């Protein structure tokens, strides 16, 4: 019976999430007004190049920018018609004082210098399959403080690792830029055993590693690295674990 109630609770939660109150809509929020300078700009029905064009806004007319989704701007025309304008068309508009409207599009320059990056990794941690997520904060263009949290799943044991460290990118302006990394972390191992009840073990670790990043397009880049972990076990000798991983990352 208690099982059923747990499931019910989950279902109720799901239902509540579905019916969650509408996100706040500020009625009197100040909107950005942009003026069309090209002969016209097109408004699509949805935020994608495949959605049909339903409206055009002619030169001299203005639009109010409501919000943004990926590379598309939801705008409202002077006649109150709403639609989606692409980044490319919004780039040609001007502000009320005639100066061109500028915004960050995410490019190689952004790859060189940005504040945050995050992504996911898949790899191998001492023979076990590793699934990991990471978040990094740029201190300078070269130096980043990063946190990696992962789970490894092996034949003999499962576990978690969390690493906090510094990452030094040698040539952040290069499309393919190598880096070195150094830090410390914790490892939790949950051994699999059928006969004896296994004990979970938590150890502190330290690591040093090297890798490379490769800029793909817009705000994406690939990242691959090797890390050499030293696990400070309770036995006489420290354990050494090698980690290889490849990831897909995003900066902003």
């Amino acid at each position: 019976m208690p099982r059923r109630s747990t499931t019910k609770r989950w279902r109720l939660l799901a239902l509540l999430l579905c019916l969650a109150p509408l996100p706040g809509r500020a009625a009197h929020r100040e909107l950005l007004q942009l003026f069309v300078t090209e002969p016209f700009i097109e408004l699509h029905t949805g935020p994608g190049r495949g959605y049909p064009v339903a409206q055009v806004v002619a030169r001299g007319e203005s639009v109010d920018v409501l919000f943004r989704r990926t590379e598309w701007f939801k705008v409202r025309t002077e006649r109150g018609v709403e639609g989606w304008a692409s980044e490319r068309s919004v780039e040609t508009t001007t502000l009320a004082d005639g100066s061109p409207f500028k915004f960050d599009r995410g490019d190689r320059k952004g790859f060189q210098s940005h504040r945050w990056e995050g992504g996911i990794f898949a790899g191998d941690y001492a023979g076990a399959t590793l699934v990991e997520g990471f978040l990094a904060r740029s201190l300078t263009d070269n130096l980043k403080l990063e946190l990696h949290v992962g789970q490894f799943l092996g034949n003999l044991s499962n576990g978690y690792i969390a690493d906090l460290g510094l990452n030094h990118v040698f040539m952040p302006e290069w499309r393919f830029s190598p880096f070195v990394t150094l830090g410390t972390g914790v490892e939790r191992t949950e051994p699999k055993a059928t006969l004896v009840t296994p004990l979970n073990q938590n150890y502190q670790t330290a690591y040093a590693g090297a890798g490379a990043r490769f800029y793909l397009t817009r705000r994406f880049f690939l990242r691959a690295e090797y890390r050499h972990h030293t696990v400070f076990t309770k036995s006489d000798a420290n354990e050494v674990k090698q980690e290889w991983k490849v990831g897909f990352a995003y900066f902003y």
Partner: protein
Amino acid sequence: MESRIRVLLLASVLMLTSGCATMHRHMHWPFHRHKAQASAQDADAAADAAAAAADAAPPPVVIDPQVERRKIKVPKIKAKNVELGAYFGEISIESYTAAPVVGAVFDYHVTEDFFFEAAAGRSKTGKTSFETLGGNVQLLTDDERRFTYYNLSLGYNFLPGEVFLGRNLAMTSGMYLLGGIGSTKFEGDQKFSVNFGAGFRVLPTDWLTIRIEAQDQVFKSDFLGTDRLRNNLSAHIGATVFF
């Protein structure tokens, strides 16, 4: 007394003569002709310089425009790229029974084509046919029957379009493909799993999404004798809100 008068006279004469020396600059006395001519030339040169300066300077302002430049404050444009929601459906756990599944999703739309998705779900299987037929045989404990998973996926939007409801309502829609990695906990063990699937998304408003999705959750296990891939197909319907 006499000496005092003499001093007074001398002083007055001195003052007068020095007065002459200072006065000639301002009053062009005839007995200072040379100097007067020189000063006249000075005045002409100064006038020429003034004229040249006047040519270089901007023309005199006829109307002073009392217009204050409007300063444009660019308000921050809100980015709504995050989708948060939940789903409910049915999962067919291979070698066991089909069971209801619930989960939560977090999506981050990076470009119009790609998005990241983190999802977590749980279900609980019933008895295998072997257990049902075998009477008292029980392969798994109650806790081991729980099927929980998480996935980190990359999604790709394709086939964008619109859905029409009646004469007046059009809603944007689109299909998407998903593929990712994660972990599944089942039969008392946690395993690396791979997931892939496809879905259909409809947006009744800009902030609400209704999605129908089919996914396969694959992991490798030797729990049932041989080491093999186990496919766990699921279909679910969900709703998410854009933030």
